[in-house]
Each structure stands twice: as C-alpha cells, then as structure tokens.
C-alpha cells in the first residue's frame, strides 16, 4: 500500500520536479527583476542618493506626458516596420531559393548566417562607414551619378532607414534558415502535384509553402517584433555613442531612451517606469502582430 502511494506521488510530482530548475531560474533572473523594477518604478530613486521616496504612479504619469518618450516610441515603431517587414519577406524568398536543388547547398546556407554571427558593433562600424556623409561609400556612389549627398545621421527618415538596413542585414539570413527548416518538412509530393498542374515557382511559394509554414511565420513575426522593440546597439553606435540618438533625438529608440534615463541621468525610478511601459508596449505589439498574422489565414 505504501509503495503504491509512493509510486503515485512519483507519477504526480516528478514532472514538476523536472521542470522546476527552469522555473527556479526564471524566478531568480526573470520574475524577480520584473517585480523589483515595478517596485523601483514607484519611487523617486536615483543611483547617487541614498533615500528613495514612494511616489506611486507619478513616474508613469510623467512618462505619458514626456514628449521624448513618445518620440522614441514613434522612432522605434518606424524602425520596427522598416526592418521586420522587408526582413521577413526577404527571408521567405531566400529560404525558397535555398530550398531548391542548389550546388553546394550547405555553403549557401551557412553564408546567409554569416551576417548574424558578426558582432553587432562590427556591423555598426562598417555601416557607419557606408553611411558616412563626407566620405561614405554610399554617398560616393550617389556622387558618381550626380545624385548629391545625403546626410544620413542628421535626417530623420534617412537615419531610421540606415538603422533598419543594419538590422535587416543581420537578421534576414537567420530568419531564412528558420523558414528553410520549416519548408523542408513540407511534403514534396505537394510540389510535384503542383508542378504537374503547371504552377510556377512563385505560385508554389504562395499556395503551398507559406500556408504550410504559417506557425513558423507567426513565431518569427513575434520574435522579430520583440527584437525590433528592443533595438539599442545599432542606434547607439550609429550615433557615435550619442545616448540621445542624434542631436534632435531623430533616431532614439525606447531602449536607448531607457539607457539614457538609467545610465546617463541615473534616474532609476523613472527608467524603471519606462522599462515597464516598454514591456507592456511590446506585449501589445506582439499581440497585435499575432492576431494580424493569424488573420491572414482566415482570409485565405
């Protein structure tokens, strides 16, 4: 009888024990900082002062009135759209090509991942040179065709564009490989049948591949939304370390604004409030994108 009880306990409790390490770790390095940040955000809390006064939601109401926060949010959303959309479209196209019978397929597949394994700082420095105003490569090429110089860093649209190009460069190949993995699980006879019916490669992509890998697409949309909302290193290095993202904050993202509040002003209370706002906004953006990508299925 006792053995039987022990056996049942083992059956019931063991699975929880097996997953416990993750949740313990998550509590320590995920949940605790989250809750602690919420606690800090309710205080007037600067790093250099000892006393922390409870001020409730004042930091949040201030933040809602803070035009620099909204500016940063708008920049972030622009970068998000300009990076995620072309990035995922290009990745699908790239994966489709890589999924064909190619000579040296492993070589090509590895190559698309190369930009991703390069350090973001190295990428930013190289792109900084490409987008240089006086001696940048892109302006030099434009000059050859008498198209004039673009002051990439100063302009709002041009700087957002340049940063998005950097992000696209790094992440297109990565997403292409994820799509490729999903595509290889699509039954080949579907394509054979489609070919017999005279479907072109593009039609096969639209009618077979994309519907078949939709769960993967939803996954990448959500992951790149989260990544896009947190962009920090690219604008920071692009702006030569300017925490304000240019003199006019023309390319300051929310993460960069958060960094400025926390590590330039050392205003941890306000920065924590901004961090929580950012968290909520990311949840909303990811949720909207999830519903949107699921909708695509309903339309078809």
């Amino acid at each position, binding site marked *: 009888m006792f053995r039987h009880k022990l056996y049942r306990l083992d059956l019931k409790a063991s699975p929880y024990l097996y997953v416990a390490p993750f949740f313990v770790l998550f509590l320590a390095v995920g949940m605790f900082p989250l809750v602690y940040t919420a606690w800090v955000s309710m205080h007037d809390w600067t*790093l250099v002062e000892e006393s922390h006064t409870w001020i409730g939601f004042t930091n949040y109401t201030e933040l809602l009135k803070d035009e620099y926060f909204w500016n940063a949010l708008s920049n972030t959303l622009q970068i998000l759209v300009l990076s995620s959309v072309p990035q995922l479209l290009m990745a699908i196209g790239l994966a489709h090509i890589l999924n064909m019978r190619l000579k040296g397929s492993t070589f090509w597949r590895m190559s698309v991942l190369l930009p991703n394994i390069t350090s973001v700082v190295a990428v930013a420095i190289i792109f900084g040179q490409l987008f*240089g105003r*006086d001696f940048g490569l892109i302006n030099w090429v434009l000059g050859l065709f008498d198209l004039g110089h673009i002051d990439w860093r*100063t302009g709002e649209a041009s700087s957002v564009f340049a940063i998005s190009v950097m992000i696209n460069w790094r992440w297109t190949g990565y997403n292409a490989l994820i799509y490729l993995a999903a595509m290889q699980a699509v039954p080949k006879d579907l394509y054979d049948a489609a070919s017999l019916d005279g479907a072109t490669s593009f039609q096969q992509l639209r009618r077979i591949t994309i519907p078949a890998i939709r769960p993967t697409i939803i996954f990448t949309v959500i992951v790149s939304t989260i990544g896009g909302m947190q962009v*920090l290193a690219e604008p*920071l*290095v692009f702006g030569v*370390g*300017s925490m304000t993202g240019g003199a006019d904050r023309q390319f300051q993202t929310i993460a960069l604004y958060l960094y400025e509040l926390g590590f330039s002003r050392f205003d941890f209370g306000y920065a924590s409030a901004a961090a929580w706002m950012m968290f909520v906004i990311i949840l909303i953006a990811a949720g909207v994108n999830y519903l949107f990508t699921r909708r695509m299925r309903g339309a078809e």
Partner: protein
Amino acid sequence: MRKAAIAASLVAAALIASGCGSGGSGEQGGKTKLTIATFGDFGYKDLYTEYMKLHPDIEVVERITKTEDHHKNLITHLAANSGASDIEAIEEGWAGQFTSQPGKFYNWMDYGGGDVKAQWPEWKWRAGSSASGVVIGLGTDVGGMAMCYRKDLFEKAGLPGDREAVSKLWPTWDDYISTGQKFMGAKLPGVTGFFDGPQVIYRSVLGQQPIGIYDGDKVVVDTNPGVKKAWDTTVKAMTVGLSAKVEAWSQDWNAGFAKGTFATIACPSWMTTIIQEQAKEHAGKWDIADIPGGTGNWGGSYLTLPKQGKNAKAAAELAKWLTAPEQQAKVFRTKGNFPSTVTLYKDAVITDYKSAFFNNAPIGQIYSKSVATMVPQFMGPKSGDINTAIINGLTRVQDGKQGADDSWAQVQKDVKALL
C-alpha cells in the same frame, strides 16, 4: 584622462556598461595587494614595476576600463558600497559627479595631501575638492588649451603661417571668426570648414569663462552670461559658414583630419595625440598657436581613495608617489600626458620639448603657459550631461533643424529635465 577614449568606449557602451568587478584587495602572503583602476592610457605600467621594486611588500594590481564605463562602474560601485578599487582615477568632466559625494572618499588632507599641495596650481587642487572643502583627488595630467592649425592651408589661403603671427590674428573669438571668413574666402579645394564642428569650439569658449555650468552648487545655464557667450560665439561661427559640420569623435571627424577638410581645431594637450593619430599623412603641416580669448582648460584627471578601500594608508602612499613631479615627468616623456604639477614647468623636460609633427612647436612651453595662467571653473555633478544637451542644441542649429532661439529654449527645457 582623455576625452578621446570616449570614441573607443562606445564599443563597450553599446553592450551596456556591466557594473561588475570583484573588489578584491587585502593581504596575501605578507604582501599588501593594492588595486588601482584607471581608463585610457595613464602610462603607469612601468611605474608600478618600479614601485614594487622600491616596496617589496606591496603588490599593485591595475584595472583598465574604457573611460565612460570606468566612471559609470565607479558610480555604481559607490552606490552599492562594494566593488571599488583602492585607488580610482576620475576625469575632470566626471569629477563633479564624485566631488558632490565626498562622504564616499577618504579626505586627502587626512593622508598627507597638505604636504604636497604646493605641487599643483590652485585651480587643479580645487577641482579635485568638494564644495565643503574635502579633497578627494590628487591631480595627474591636465588639458591646457591652445589652437592647432594647418600651417600649409593657412599659407595657401594667403594668411600668415608662422605661429607668432597666427596668434596675433586672433586675440579674441571675433577675430578668430573673421580670420575664418578670410580663410573660407580663398575656397581651397577639399576644404569644407575652418573648424570641425560645434562641440570643440563650444567647450573651449566655455572653459574660458570664470563661471560655467555651475555657480557653486547651482546650475546657472539659463542666467549665466558665460554659457550664453560660448553658445553665441559658436552659433555665430557656424552661421557665417565656418563649420565643417562633422561631429567630434565620429568617423567623419577622423576622416576630416586625414583628408584635411578643416584647418583649425581648439587643442587641449591630449588633442595633439589625436591629431597625430588621425592625420598621419600631414606630419609637419600642423602647428600650434595661442587660443583666442586667453587660455582655458579641458580635461585632465585625478586619483581618489574610495572609502571602501581597506588599505587607505598604503594606497595613499602609492597615489602620492604616482602623482609626484618626478613620475609625471616620466609619463610625459613616454606618453605625452601633460603634467599638472607646476613645479615641472621650469624643468628642461617640459621647456625644451618640441614636437616634430607640429612643425617643431614648443609644446611644453605652450601648454605650461596655458595651465599656469588659466581661470578655474567649477564642475558640478551634471556638467557632462548638461554640456551634451547644449551641444545637441548647437548641432540642431548647425543642421538647420531649429533656429538659434528655439534651440536655446529647448536646451533650457532639457537642462531642467536633467536636474
């Protein structure tokens, strides 16, 4: 020590300053272990070896971080009350952040600071002290101020090239601007400006004012005519078209030195090292003249003893030895960091030193004159951030995004948000 190291520190800043570092110090095997945290290149490596030879019971361990990270780490370590080294270096631009919390440091007056006080000019000593008079830092190097210029471009533009004559061209900043207009009038090929951009000229003019961002512990950006003067001078120089519109420490700025797109730059002593690195092709074409408007200072560092240190006495001895004139002279000879100890300025090490890169300009004499005669300015805890806000404002004017008045109004708003 060097603003230049900012450029290098970006790389690390991009990864977000990780405020860690074990604060290990103590006695091991009879030896006292002293940790010293610096940034950039203080040129101390050989001195540590020498010191350990002189004091066999001491072991010196150095930690070098990039400038910005170093200071941010120190701020975090002081707040957390753990992690700081026995000796921590601080740079002038950041000093106010630390002199405003003197309780976190040992007072040098309790560790024999009074005996060596006479080595430094009064202002250098004061800038390492809190408003209440607690001395937290002993001076290492110093910036000084001069004007570096391209002698060859000046001559091509029909201006005098000789450094005496050039100094006479611009007793004031208005003269500097009108000289610039003459220079730009010559329309030399490849030259896009008389100076690089707003940051360096603004900091130089500001550094000459008796009162800067702070008056005592009060921020006076809105009312202080000195700040407005630095702003107006920079705006005027930009509106008459003298700026090459490059941002200091950017890649375009480096390229500007290499390609020679601008002909002058205000020059603290550490700037000469940057010019030599970036403008290698133009050795001998650069020269150094007096700065318009008198003298000034930008940069230079201090050694402090955080109260977390357990070996304050031994650390104080080491720091005093490192900042003594003999050691500062050694550093100047090997690295070029300009000494802050005035007693050295009559020494042949300084007086006879000429730089071949700068057309044999007597660098030692130029900077010692500048340092000895300058007016001190108080740096407060937020000086750095406030200057960034003002320089952003100037950049907006330069880029045509805002008129000077609108931009000034926004600067006032931004500064208020910082306080």
